[in-house]
């Protein structure tokens, strides 16, 4: 099987790394070779965080090449823009319809509210998901990462039993039900 490349991006604290770890664990359980490389400096401090997940028969590089990413999952709109050049022509960008203003620096241009239109004009298959809205509905805005993962799962060939077991094994008991609901909600959002 050719290597599938997924890039997950967000703001420190949004759970981009956990989402990518869940995907990597599910891919291992589904029998793939996997590499998952995460990029964070002082990640808890609100900076940009991203992680590559690559799976297939044999994976070498921990990160995909520019233009090779099949799916970009962005937990925030500006972060979708930041990494969109990694996505292959016509590739899929699943983006949380959520905005986190970066800290203001001198002479900074305004936040790019046109992000989604820009990405669509570039020919990407942009799927806008109300992940944070859905997560708040479920009782915790932090579950947006797993909503987004559920949205991605619809496009991957990993059986639901594998996802179920992965969530069970990795998510602490007290948060399991929330995350199971978030995952299911994400799937539902992409189907409809």
């Amino acid at each position, binding site marked *: 099987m050719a290597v599938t490349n997924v890039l997950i991006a967000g703001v420190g604290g949004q759970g981009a790394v956990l989402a990518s770890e869940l995907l990597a664990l599910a891919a291992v359980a589904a029998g793939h070779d996997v590499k998952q490389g995460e*990029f964070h400096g002082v990640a808890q*401090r609100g900076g940009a965080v991203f992680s590559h997940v690559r799976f297939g028969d044999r994976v070498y590089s921990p990160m995909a090449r520019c233009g090779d990413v099949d799916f970009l999952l962005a937990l925030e709109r500006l972060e979708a823009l930041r990494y969109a050049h990694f996505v292959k022509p016509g590739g899929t960008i699943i983006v949380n319809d959520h905005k986190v203003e970066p800290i203001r620096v001198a002479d900074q241009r305004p936040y790019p509210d046109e992000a989604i239109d820009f990405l669509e004009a570039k020919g990407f298959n942009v799927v806008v998901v109300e992940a944070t809205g859905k997560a708040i509905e479920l009782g915790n805005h932090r579950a947006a990462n797993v909503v987004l993962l559920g949205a991605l799962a619809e496009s991957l060939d990993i059986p639901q039993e594998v996802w179920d077991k992965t969530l069970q094994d990795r998510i602490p008991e007290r948060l399991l039900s929330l995350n199971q609901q978030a995952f299911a909600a994400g799937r539902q959002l992409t189907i409809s």
Partner: protein
Amino acid sequence: MAKRLMSGNEAVARGAWEAGVAFAAGYPGTPSTEVLERLATYEEIDAHWSSNEKVAFDEGMGAALGGVRTMVTMKHVGLNVAADPFMVFPYAGTNAGFVVLVADDPGMYSSQNEQDSRYLAKVAKVPVLEPADAAEARAMAIAAFELSERFQTPVMYRTTTRLAHTRGVVEVGERSEAPRKEFSRQASQYAIPVYARFRRPELEEKLDRLREFAEEFEGNVIEEGDPKVGVVSHGIPYQYVKEVAPEATVFKLGMVYPLPKKKLKEFCARFDTVYVVEESEGFIQQEMASFGITKLIGKERFTNIGELSADLVAAGLNGTPVADDFAGEVAVLPRPPVMCAGCPHRGVFGTLKKLGLLVTGDIGCYTLGCLPPFNAMHTTFCMGASIGNATGFNKAGEERVVAVIGDSTFLHAGLPSVLSAAYNRVPTTTILLDNGTTGMTGHQEHPGTGHSLKGGPAPAVDYEALIRSLGVEHVEVVDPWDLEATERAIQAGLAHPGPAVVIARRHCNLLPEEKAKERTAYRVDPDECILCEDCFETGCPALVWQDDLPYIRDWECVGCSMCSQLCPADAIGPVEEV
């Protein structure tokens, strides 16, 4: 064997555990930190955070000489702190296996410099192993202990950020206990300064034997491919080579010092040109050139600045251009890290900005104090430098200078500088940011926290008594959320004629016990707000513009009240009161 998904750091720890490691020590430093955290999870391993890397190294030497397999862990700049014993230990050689894990940070994701530790190993005459993925990280940890005991040498186990933080599939094994080896009390081998001249030739002989070993080491492998394209690589760069040139013939080095001279010469004789693909400096290329090998292409094509990538390696090998991001077409705004909402450091840096002081800084989250909106840190170099730097500025005639240093950093390398200022009666003012943890690396315990790495209770340093005992008469504790009190305390410290220490004490908001606290979020009253923007001087990420007004995101606000203290219109207060 069971297959598991593990990060490089976890896999190193797993391999060390399987190799029978009994003692491990280190000091936190990204990207090395998780190795020791993971080692500590094994009940057979006695693991602890040391007060700094030199101490960890000294303790490790003692344990290995005392007969148990030992791993010490640190980042590249940590090895600088431990460089003194690192350079001398090889003169003695070890008894039981001794491996120092050193994690380099190409790209400086969380470091003050790029530093290729292979050079330090060469200076110390210590062999270096470097894995290329998590599976190798486990296996090579076991090989490192075998190598160490076979040659009675300390071994450097080098990783990089990408190796440390990449998860991969690892087949794990079981632990083999390593029986304790008896220490023989021979001063002629271990009392180095007295016997160094006698030991010196033996060090060279050992290095010669290590060179021979490199020729047979099974981690140095040739992967046959296209007879026209020859590549020498190692570690993570090897993965990039396989990604972009799967057809190439690759000499993959698992031992990056000393190199297998004979094998490399034979390999290179087969090709018109050999590409040397390595990250950071051209260490392998230079070594190979010193063997008389010509026609090498390395750093001319593969930059020594920052981290390599598959795209950069493709550009170097084939001239494939690296794609640009979309920043030229749309506002891809930078998103630098920020201090968290309610971070106690904010109170100190807001005050330092207001007072217009010259600030010498140190290594930690608070280094972000040099960024807007504070711009209130003017120098930062390395662990503990702030205090000595402030003393020096004072000597140069600068009176309005303060040093700012975190609690873990203070205990790591700040103490000797306070002692020097006190001893020499220099009126150095130090602000000790005591947030009760090692914040930036992810909340490790340290001698001030009251807990050990393994989780048990530990004595917590009494900073006030400790600092007074060094000869500092003026020590004052203040809550940095109280802006008025913080300003008063800093002014009093500066006014004191001798050295002074102001302890700004409040726990990091991200600590679990802080997160668990009931918090009342604050709110901006739109009818009272005069749009002066003073509240934005906090730089708090919970405070944003919404509908042309300052707005506090209640889910992020921890109720520190600092924005409210800055508001001249009394427009900000706890949610239920406004």
